[in-house]
């Protein structure tokens, strides 16, 4: 993977974690963080530039989805659960 792509991947990863962390719902937040981490780990070995590009696009779409859902979650906050 070219150095420039690598830094793009890392920046997307950081961004996705940062946004996932904003979910007010405990279960959605922990799921999003876990799922993002596991997805990047599972795809970490992929070198094919085409595949990387496709995954990056998917990641961008998911990032936008997380941001939208975080806003909705913040509008309808509820109490914290007993484990938080």
């Amino acid at each position, binding site marked *: 993977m070219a150095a420039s792509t690598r830094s793009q991947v890392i920046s997307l990863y950081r961004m996705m974690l940062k946004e996932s962390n904003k979910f007010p719902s405990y279960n959605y937040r922990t*799921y999003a963080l876990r799922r993002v981490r596991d997805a990047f780990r599972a795809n970490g070995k992929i070198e094919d530039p085409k595949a990387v590009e496709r995954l990056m696009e998917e990641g961008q779409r998911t990032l936008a989805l997380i941001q939208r859902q975080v806003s909705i979650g913040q509008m309808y906050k509820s109490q914290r*659960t007993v484990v938080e």
Partner: protein
Amino acid sequence: MLSSGRTVSSRLLRPASWLPLWQGSEGRTASTVQKELIKKWELEKDELRPLYMDFQATTPMDPRVLDAMLPYQVNYYGNPHSRTHAYGWESETAMETARKQVADLIGADPREIIFTSGATESNNIAIKGLARFYQTKKRHIITTQTEHKCVLDSCRVLEAEGFSITYLPVQKNGLLDLELLEASIRPDTSLVSVMTVNNEIGVKQPIKDIGKICRSKGVFFHTDAAQAVGKIPINVTDWKIDLMSISGHKIYGPKGVGALYVRRRPRVRLEPLQNGGGQERGLRSGTVPTPLTVGLGAACSIAQQEMEYDHQRVSMLANRLIEKILSEIPDVTMNGDPEQRYAGCINLSFAYVEGESLLMALKDVALSSGSACTSASLEPSYVLRAIGADEDLAHSSIRFGIGRFTTEEEVDYTAEKCITQVRRLREMSPLWEMVQEGIDLKSIKWTQH
């Protein structure tokens, strides 16, 4: 109608008669009232919510599902059956995409998917619809004693219409005896209905073998897969299923939507229960709710994509819960077959503890003693009685549901609470005391007569 004590600013606020605090607030300014309300809301927020461990009753919607649905709740409101304008076309396209997503998950053709309001409706259409269509020649139906209430109740209705129904018993492990099934099929049997994964004990029936038997005998086969779709791999062609019920809210989709798979080749014919505009191949008239079907489609496509990941995680958490509880407290039985099961549904019987009191003691955790539909009654579950559980064990059972959004912390919390509460309740129990003294409870005569 402002009272003299009020300031001008209150006029800016509309009278909100639905707010009880507003009444009797004479002499206070609107802003004070508002401040008090905000304070009250803030206080309510400080109260903690119980954690959710009842994924068989329903599941929270996946945020990805809600994201797919919202555009159709906001802008794209057309009737999917309108053929004359773009509003209809865009809704129709969305509905057909969803139909394909559902079909792909179960290995079917999109034309074989009928959208309904949920698995209860799907089961009703499948059982009553098929029985009534073929009633002139075939008037016998086979099902099992551990089916969901809606299957059993549909069968009761058919019984009243003169059909004969065989309610097959299940073995101790909750599984259907295939030889018994084969022996029960008669020349006039039209349908066999067996659920894929049981909602109370989580056992997985040998659907593939049942499908083979039914096909070889020329009997239609329906399965209620509400608890199985999206959680275990299902292929309607491999498993020779003719009719299958699917529910939206059990797979992180919206409530109020489901689907029925109806095989085209060999063709399965049904008499519709609901008549009208002829939507859904005339089998289920009524406007298809586009946003809900979009949600169901998204839930199915996510389930397909996440099945392996979810399966690993749910199994890991389930084992964690079982190990923790079983290693800490004695006399706990797991109901249902230990191998042939869906991992996310764990049904445990805590001997010498009354299930309802344990549920009360575990009010920090949303749990159930069985199916949500029957959770209001104190009767022991008919599913547990059907697998031959003793009355006292059937009374002391609790179902733990684990799903996509369950965390390790939640499992540990539930296990710990459960262990302490079972110990506490047993200490208070005279039965437990007697068992500790070595008295066999079965030898006791409880009544005089």
